[in-house]
């Protein structure tokens, strides 16, 4: 009787432990097979034939459609540089440079990857219309109030994450990935 009980406890905790650890591994954004650059994360193996079972499980769960190796690379930031989650109450400045790419876009999305819109269209900016300093660096302000210069509105997003998509980039090759520079996400004042 006692041994049956012990066996049941063992099986129950094994099932719990197994499923919990599996969930941890495939939640979005996944902690596995990730490249981290400051506040930014990327999954260059996602959607490729080299993807490991964890990436496959994560993609199947989230339904995300990654960019192909011939298309580009997606980078995601959930937090600012200090590790605090991005939220509307604060203004942020994205400062610096991006890795070499023919074109890149920066967009806001919600936790499910859905587009955030504001009155003027979508909360996104392309590198083609970006104002830059003479040295090629840039500063983008994320704020609920209109700003001069490069500005993305956070008016309709209580919480959000920032996605940078690099198109036609050399950033995907393995050696480049470890030396990439991504802009900082600095928190300004909070309301």
């Amino acid at each position, binding site marked *: 009787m*006692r041994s049956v009980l*012990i066996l049941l*406890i*063992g*099986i129950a*905790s*094994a*099932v*719990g*432990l*197994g*499923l919990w*650890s*599996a969930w941890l*591994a*495939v939640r979005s954004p996944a902690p596995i097979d990730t490249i981290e650059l400051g506040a930014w994360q990327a999954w260059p193996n996602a*959607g*490729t*034939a080299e*993807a490991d*079972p*964890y990436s*496959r*499980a994560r*993609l*199947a769960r*989230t*339904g*995300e*459609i*990654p*960019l*192909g*190796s*011939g*298309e*580009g690379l997606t980078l995601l930031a959930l937090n600012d540089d200090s590790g605090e989650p991005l939220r509307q109450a604060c203004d942020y400045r994205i400062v610096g440079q991006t890795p070499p790419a*023919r*074109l890149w*876009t920066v*967009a806001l*999305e*919600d936790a*499910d*990857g*859905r*587009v*955030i*819109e504001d009155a003027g269209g*979508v*909360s*996104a900016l*392309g590198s*083609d*219309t970006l104002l830059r300093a003479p040295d090629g660096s840039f500063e983008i302000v994320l704020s609920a109030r209109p700003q001069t210069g490069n500005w993305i509105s956070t008016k*309709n*997003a209580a919480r959000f994450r920032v996605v940078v*998509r690099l*198109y*036609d980039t050399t950033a995907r090759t393995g050696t480049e990935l470890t030396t990439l520079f991504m802009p900082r996400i600095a928190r300004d004042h909070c309301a």
Partner: protein
Amino acid sequence: MSGLALTRGWELPNIRFGGLATFVAGTLLLAGTIHICAILLVPVFAKEDGWSQLAPYAGENQFSEIPDASASGAKGVAGLDPLFVTGACRVSLADAPASVAVDANDRFWSVALYDPKGVIVFSLNDRTAIEGRLDMIVVNPVQNAELKKTPSTEIEETIVAESPSDDLIALLRLFAPSPTARADALKILADSECVPAPSVLP
């Protein structure tokens, strides 16, 4: 007496140290097995994977626009670039190779072939296209072998993409940051070709 009963109660997992080690090892082993099975089974049972999200919007023999899912409630596919117009076309290689043609030289665009397992089997961008024009033949391995047996001059400027899967969704992404660019992109999408091409094989 009650103290004794309590002690007895605490004794319930009355296993020797060796037994405890076995218990822990067995539990962890089983947990590991369940963990691996769960990870491997997620793609099999996932209902909202990329393929099932794209499939309802993918056009037959033509590219159809995929709407972006928005936080304000608009239905569509999440995780697409809002500054792009994205089109999808269902490709079946079971009967014949497929031909994909895009003509656009005023903007960045890219094409990806997506398979039901969520693998991008082939992708390229407009830099690979000749003067903004892409002619691509999509074949499975059997068709590719046939194609190589009879080299023809016609397909020299054509890109041949081999896919291990017969079932594919072709994705066409066109950079369209403004309303006018969007209107143009939708026109390019409608003019792009995505059709079965039985004639490329002898």
